[in-house]
């Protein structure tokens, strides 16, 4: 089981993601934008983070940039409505481990998590 930080300004979307993660046996914590996400990530040290891109205060791109400059890398899965190839490429360059488009399928999130997490947390052995 992993601790996953879910960052999204949409309460509905956070609920959707956390329900999916909980059903997969993971623990979740939440943040409503990138700024809060950085604070929670620093305090809680999650095993993985899911982040939306288009958010107030600090968007997902800025969040990735700030997180990348941090000391300990945490795998980040971007979950966004933005379908543009350029955006996907930018996120990858900023260190995103996976990029999912909304609406995502639970199996897509499961596979992305599996690729990010160590085996003891549900990742691929």
């Amino acid at each position, binding site marked *: 089981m992993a601790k996953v930080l879910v960052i999204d300004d949409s309460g*509905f979307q956070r609920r959707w993601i956390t329900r999916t993660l909980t059903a997969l046996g993971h623990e979740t914590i939440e943040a409503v934008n990138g700024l809060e996400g950085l604070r929670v990530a620093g305090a809680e040290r999650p095993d993985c983070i899911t982040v939306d891109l288009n958010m107030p205060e600090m968007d997902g791109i800025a969040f990735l940039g700030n997180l990348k400059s941090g000391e300990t890398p945490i795998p980040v899965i971007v979950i966004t409505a933005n379908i543009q*190839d350029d955006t996907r490429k930018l996120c990858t360059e900023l260190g995103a481990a996976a990029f999912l488009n909304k609406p995502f399928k639970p199996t897509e999130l499961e596979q992305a998590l599996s690729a990010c997490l160590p085996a003891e947390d549900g990742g691929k052995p």
Partner: protein
Amino acid sequence: MPAGGRWRKAVIVDDARKEFIAELLNIGVGRAGSVVSELVGARVVLEVPDIEICRSQDVLPTLTALRGDDIIAVSQGFTGVLGGDAALVINGFSGNLIVHRLLQQIGDDGDPATMRDEAITEIGNIVVNSLVGAWSKVFCDPFDFGLPVFRRGTLEDCLAPFLGTGGDQGRKTYAVSGSAHFSVNDFFIMGTLIVFFDEKSIETLMGAAAEQR
């Protein structure tokens, strides 16, 4: 000169250009249908959308299917080679139906009434991103998006910021709308996608349409 007068002289919306613009919107409507289908977990029968192109201030009378006091609009600004605002507009009944199905689909036992606004905002966000994002492939240029804005009330209330009146007069000058009729199981859902283009964008769009001929 009346608002919109300059483009009236500069921009000619002939059938070929209208066809190109209609196809751009068709791409989005098709994606919207696909997204709604995925969200509600049901086959969506999508009819060919009715495309209208008119001045922003003249768009309300063309939206004949959106009547009553319970209209919902989720709009999102976008910038790039084209700039403007795109909106998903549905009636309250359709909104309730989609959210009810969506909550069933994700196994959420939350109250649909309290979750409706947030859920529809997110659906609008996904649909608008699908629409405009698809254009980035057509124009080979990326778009940036503002935050989605939820409005509820009469159609006029919902679209007031884009109708080319008041302080916005002359800035948003052109509306391209496509009304898509979805059938989800036995239920009928009507959604309309409207894109309000600024003057420079509509000229860019017309130029691109001319190149296609």
